[in-house]
């Protein structure tokens, strides 16, 4: 296969970037998208040019490191697939592909296709955990959790934190990520003690860095793990409720 590749090149955040186009002959359909980029990079280096910088690590679709826009779609055209798991056989000989980094105010650019997603860590830091220290946990079977509840929590917990939801959103909103991380815990019995504080803290931290949700649903379509926007609805419900709850009332039970 022969591919025309137009890539966003920007050496550092304070230097203007631009698109550069490369002719890429000899692409095997069995290559993953990132392996195709590896080949482009090897050729660039042999020509004395700096390789394209892009984040990647596990290349099994689970670490969430990789991802960029391919022809305007986060992680490219294949549904429920991270860039590292996208293979060149999904494209045709002669295709022209344009790749650019995630573009969102919450993800400042580092270099070429690499962005800084540490704002996601700030959201988790604000409450995306169960506040139990090491030691003293009761037996794992002491709290039975109905299978459908455990399964729903796992559906949310499958989020890989890649940022495609933010990149796909016209508003640069992080609702899908935040709600998945929050509802994983809010759905479980272990997450109840801090449920309302967690909800308020995570939502408010999210809003300091990211845009607002206007129900475009692009996030769900782009998500490599097919996380459902139902979790956004659950987050909104919890947020409304948390605002009404008097969180300091002792003995307040959750419904």
């Amino acid at each position, binding site marked *: 296969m022969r591919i025309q590749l137009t890539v966003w090149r920007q050496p550092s955040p304070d230097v203007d970037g631009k698109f550069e186009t490369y002719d890429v002959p000899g692409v095997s359909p*069995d290559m993953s998208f990132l392996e195709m980029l590896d080949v482009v990079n090897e050729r660039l280096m042999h020509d004395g040019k700096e*390789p394209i910088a892009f*984040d990647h690590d596990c290349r099994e679709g689970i670490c969430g490191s990789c991802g960029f826009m391919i022809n305007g779609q986060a992680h490219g055209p294949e549904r429920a697939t991270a860039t590292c798991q996208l293979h060149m056989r999904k494209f045709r000989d002669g295709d022209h592909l344009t790749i650019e980094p995630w573009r969102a105010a919450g993800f400042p650019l580092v270099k070429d296709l690499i962005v800084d997603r540490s704002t996601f*860590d700030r959201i988790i*830091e604000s409450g995306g955990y169960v506040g*139990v220290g090491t030691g003293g946990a009761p037996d794992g079977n002491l709290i*039975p959790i109905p299978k459908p509840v455990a399964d729903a929590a796992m559906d949310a917990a499958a989020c*890989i*934190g890649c940022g495609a939801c933010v990149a796909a959103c016209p508003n640069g909103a992080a609702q899908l990520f935040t709600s998945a991380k929050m509802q994983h815990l809010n759905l479980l019995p272990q997450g109840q003690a801090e449920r309302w504080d967690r909800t308020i803290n995570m939502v408010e931290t999210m809003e300091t860095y990211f845009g607002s949700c206007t129900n475009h649903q692009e996030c769900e379509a782009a998500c490599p793990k097919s996380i459902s926007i139902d979790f956004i609805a659950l987050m909104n419900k919890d947020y409304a409720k948390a605002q009404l709850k008097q969180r300091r009332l002792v003995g307040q039970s959750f419904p």
Partner: protein
Amino acid sequence: MALDSKIPAGPLEAKWDNHKFDIKLVNPANKRRFDIIVVGTGLAGASAAASLAELGYRVKVVTFHDSPRRAHSIAAQGGINAAKNYKNDGDSVYRLFYDTIKGGDYRAREANVYRLAQTSVDIIDQCVAQGVPFAREYGGLLDNRSFGGAQVSRTFYARGQTGQQLLLGAYQALMRAVHSYGVQLYPRTEMLDVVVKDGHTAGIVCRDLNTGEVFSMSGHAVVLATGGYGNAFYLSTNAKNSNVTAAWRAAKKGAYFANPCYTQIHPTCIPASDEFQSKLTLMSESLRNDGRVWVPKQTDDARSADQIPEADRDYFLERRYPAFGNLVPRDVASRAIKHEVDAGRGVGPLKNGAYLDFTESTERLGHAVIEERYGNLFEMYDRITGEDPYKLPMRIYPAVHYTMGGLWVDYNLMSNLPGLFVLGEANFSDHGANRLGASALMQGLADGYFVLPYTIGDYLAPLLGTKPLSIDDPAFTESEHSVAEQTNRMLAIKGTKTVDEIHRELGHVLWDNCGMARTEQSLSKALAEIPAIREEFWKNVCVLGENESRNQALEKAGRVADFLEFGELMVLDALRRNESCGGHFREEYQTEDGEALRDDENYAYVAAWEFKGVDAEPELHKEQLNFEFVHPSTRSYK
């Protein structure tokens, strides 16, 4: 220097409890007077950092990832073992201990492994309390499944993403500690040296990957939780950025590297498709429950799988191991597949695999059952290869997967360098010569949550009132200088070979000569070839760009430079171990049936190597393994 493993005296089941009582403690109010640096944020690093911070220590955490959550623990699929006996099938701490010692082919310390089995039950409780969504039964209790090397069901899992969920649990605990306990997080920061002053570990030297700035951190103790060295082989199931640099640079500062030749090869990975292949993908071991492994009887058979009649197929695992059939352990299956491919009977476009065929089980169980059991794996295979395993058999080939060797540590998880602790895959301690499935996650979390938080106090307590070494001390500035100098040196070569090209050469040499099967001849050949590749690297590597902005080729170059030194040690260790055990198979030492032949009389020791210079022979220190409670026997799977 004599190696003191500090294994406590007394009966096996009382050793850990007695030890916890005997070691020194740091008063809660004094813990904040100690600075601890944790390098790496996988299961071991994140769990240790969170637990230490909760105790009150001042903790700094370094990771080269953009977020602690990216560490490669996240890719573990299968599960985590724990001796809970929830299935009422006779499991116990002693049985998990016994299975692990035997699975490791009697090359691990009894006391360490027993402690691992003891703490396994606490890990599950801790993770459940954190909200890890383990699989549940309809009654709401935790589900278990069985795994290789055990006759009980003791493996806890979260779909095929157990590593992800456990890591997110540890990561969230770490982020809570960042929020509530003042942990300082240094993402996109790579540790490039350990600083030792007057025989004690004083801190580390790091490079900020975004700015190229080299800076020092000092502390009372340094904890390395930096993973394994499988990527020495270039192609492995490890993440692309996994590397040996932190461990190796510690080794160059005097920490002993133990048993580097113990590498685990996983039999069911997707074969490489072409020379551009960047990594290999593992397919869960569970597939061998229902898949049958075969190759054509003819060499170079060009027919597609469905055109080859039964009579022309060789189900070689079933033929050679009638009792265990397709379910022989990882090392045995891997070697058998290699044997067929080497004989020219490999399948696929590059003739580099064997078939894993579900036709018979689909006929027996129905399409729906196979889909329910393996649907996600079949989908993953289809995504990667473009072939539908419901129609054509899968193609599989073994790949490097895990490394049992690592930095030598004592029972307290401290290396021979006082103040340098090593956790998880980065240490050598608990798996002997072969690791059982679902035990890596267990060890990482045991070390981080339940071992180090106690044992580090024993080292720190006498240091009360001392300050960490100033980062203006010459020990730090000299180290910073040498780190910066290596960077400049690599940038100045401007040669013609890329880092990956050289790394691939090293990988070929290691895989061909120090892979699944090793001989004195192949190892000697590798020992002769590696220094030449290393020389070429330092003369002809091409690293473009600058130090001052993000430069991934430069990062990779530093890691490959370390693999080029470390690879030689791995080969040397394999050459000196004149026996076969677990993942180390020397063809000269096998039984008539082709099984690993141990030599307990001469080789029941841990080989701990002391670095003496890049071109100098390292010095071997032996720690004798004593088996007081289990008697080593021969593993047989016929």
